[in-house]
C-alpha cells in the first residue's frame, strides 16, 4: 500500500501528484470496521435507563422541543446532497465508473460553499455557538464517556443540546469540509470554468501536489465520517435524533431521557426559536 502518488516533472524533480487511491479503500475499510466494532460493542452494552426528571421541572417542559430550526435542517440536507454529489463525482471515476464528472463536481462544490456560508451566518446570528463548542468540561466528559464504554468509569453527565460526540463529529466534518473547499477552489483555477481565468502555473508543481493531497485526504476523511454518521443515524436508539433532523423537534420524553434540562433550557427557548 502506498500513501501518495509521485511523478517526475519536466525539470526532473520528483513531485507529489495526489494521494494514493489505496487511501480511499483504507477510509472505506476504516468506516466499515468502525461500524462492525460498534455493533459488537453495542451488543454487549445496554444503555442504562435514564433517570427521571423532577416532576416540577418536567411539568414546565413543552411536549415538543425544537432541536433543529428550519435553517439548520435546510443546511444539513443541502450540504448532504452537495457532499453526496461530490463524493460520487470524485470517486466513481476512480472506481472505474467513467462519466463527464468535472463540471458536476465543481458546481456541487460551489453549492457546498454556499451552504457552508449560509450555515456560518445562520449559526453566528441565530444559534448559540456555545451549544456546539467543546470546552475543557466537554473534553472531560468525552474522556469519561470513553472510559465508561470500556467499563472503567461511571456514565458521564447528560449533555446539553448536543452530546459531546456529536460536537466532535461536527468539528471533524467542518475541518474536512474546509479542507476540500479551500483546496477545491484552488483546483478550479486549473480547469476551464466561468469563474476563474485558467492558470495552471499559479502555484509551483510541488505546492499543487500538496493542494491535491490535502483535497484527497479531506475527501477520504469525509468518506469514513459519513459512513459512521449514516450508521448512527439508522441505529434504532438514535432514531429520535435522526427524526429531529427531518421534523425539527424531539418529544418531551426523549428530551428528558437524553438531555440535562439544566444544560439545555427549553421552556422559553422552545418558544423563541
Amino acid at each position, binding site marked *: 500500500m502506498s500513501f501518495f502518488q509521485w511523478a*517526475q516533472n519536466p525539470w526532473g524533480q520528483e513531485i507529489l501528484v495526489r494521494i494514493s487511491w489505496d487511501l480511499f479503500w483504507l477510509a472505506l475499510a476504516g468506516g466499515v470496521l468502525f461500524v462492525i466494532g460498534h455493533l459488537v460493542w453495542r451488543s454487549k452494552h445496554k444503555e442504562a435507563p435514564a433517570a427521571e426528571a423532577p416532576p416540577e421541572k418536567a411539568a414546565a417542559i413543552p411536549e415538543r422541543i425544537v432541536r433543529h430550526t428550519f435553517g439548520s435542517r435546510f443546511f444539513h440536507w443541502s450540504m448532504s446532497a452537495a457532499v453526496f454529489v461530490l463524493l460520487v463525482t470524485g470517486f466513481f471515476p476512480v472506481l472505474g465508473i467513467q462519466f463527464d464528472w468535472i463540471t458536476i463536481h465543481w458546481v456541487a462544490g460551489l453549492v457546498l460553499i454556499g451552504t457552508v456560508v449560509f450555515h456560518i451566518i445562520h449559526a453566528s446570528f441565530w444559534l448559540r455557538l456555545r451549544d456546539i463548542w467543546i470546552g475543557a468540561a466537554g473534553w472531560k466528559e468525552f474522556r469519561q464517556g470513553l472510559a465508561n464504554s470500556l467499563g472503567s468509569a461511571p456514565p458521564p453527565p447528560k449533555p446539553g443540546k448536543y452530546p459531546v460526540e456529536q460536537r466532535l463529529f461536527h468539528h471533524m466534518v467542518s475541518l474536512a469540509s474546509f479542507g476540500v473547499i479551500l483546496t477545491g477552489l484552488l483546483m478550479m483555477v486549473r480547469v476551464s470554468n466561468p469563474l476563474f481565468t485558467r492558470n495552471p502555473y499559479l502555484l509551483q508543481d510541488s505546492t499543487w501536489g500538496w493542494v491535491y493531497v490535502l483535497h484527497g485526504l479531506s475527501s477520504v476523511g469525509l468518506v469514513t465520517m459519513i459512513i459512521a454518521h449514516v450508521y448512527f443515524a439508522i441505529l434504532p436508539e438514535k432514531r429520535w435524533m435522526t427524526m429531529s433532523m427531518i421534523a425539527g423537534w424531539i418529544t418531551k420524553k426523549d428530551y428528558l431521557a437524553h438531555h440535562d434540562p439544566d444544560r439545555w433550557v427549553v421552556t422559553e427557548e422552545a418558544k423563541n426559536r
Partner: protein
Amino acid sequence: MAVIHDTIEAFELFQPASLEDALVLRRRYGKVSWAYAGGLDSLDWFKDRIKRPEVVIDLGGVAELKGVRESGDGIEIGALTTLTEIASSDEIRSKYSVLSEAASQVATPQIRNQSSIGGNLSQDTRCWYYRGGWPCYRAGGNICYADTPTSVNREHAIFEAKRCVAVNPSDTAPALIALDAKFVIHGPSGERVVDAEDYFITPATDIQRMTILGPSDLLTAIRIPGTWAGARFHFEKVRDRQAWDFALVNVASAMKLSGDTIEDVRIVVNAVGPRPLRLRDVERQLKGQTATADVAEAAGELAILGARPLQHNAYKIPLMRNLVRRAIRAS
C-alpha cells in the same frame, strides 16, 4: 521525461494463433497486458520506456483478424488488416472510396504496409508533452502542459477539450464514422458491437483513454453496412508536409443526392478534438438543400461554432471551415 534507452524493457511475449487464445490472454493479464498489432504506436512507447507492459500479446498470428470479407449487405474488415490492403482493396475502392482514400494518406507506404486499421483507430494521441513522458493528466498526473500560456499547442484541440487538450490523430476514424461503420469488440462479457462514433471518448469521460476499449477488450473487426455504398465521398487531410505526418485537420464526408438535392449526408472532422467530431448540425442544415457555394459557405460557418482555440492553434478554425466547405462542394 522520455529517455532514449538501448533496449526495450523486458516483457513476457505471447503469440496466440487464434482469436480465442488472444482473448483468454487478454482476460488473464488485463491491465498489465498490451495488445500488439502493427507495432507502430506500441514500439515508440516501449522504446521510450513510458509504457512498460509486463505482458505483450502479439496478434500478428491471428488469421481471423485479417482480411476484407463480405458481411450482409456490406463488408467486414479484420482489425489487423493493413492500411495498404485497405487502400488497395477493389471492393473498398469501388464502394467505400472515402476509406481507401483516408487509408492511403496515412504516414508513408512502409508504415501503411505494417500498420493495421485497428491500430490506426485505437492509437493514442500524439501530444508531445504526453508522448514525452511528462506527468500530465492523461499520464495520470494533475496538469495539462499543453494548455498553459507558454505551451506549444499548435496541433491541439479547438473542440471538446476538458483539462486535456490532445486530439485524436486517426485518418481512418472520420471516414468510418462517415460510412456509419460498426466496431466489433470482444471483452470479458463477450462480443459487443458499437457505432464507430461511440468508440471514441473525450477526457471528460476518461482522461487516460481515447477509446472505450477496456484493459481486457480487443477490437476485432469493423463492419461497414451497405447503406452508404457508392455514395459521393470526399476525404481531405491537411498536414504540415505531404508525407509522413499527422493531420492538422482532416475531413470525411458521405453524401446521397437526389438530383441536385442532398438527400442524406454525414460529415466528420478529426484532429480538432479528442475524438472525431461528427457535424450533426451541419448535416441537418444540408439535408434537402442543393450543394451550392452559398450552402457550403453557411455550412462552414456552422461547423466552427463553439470552437475555442488555444494560444497557437486559432488557424485551425478557418482551416476546418474551409475543409467543410470544400467537402460539400466536392461531394
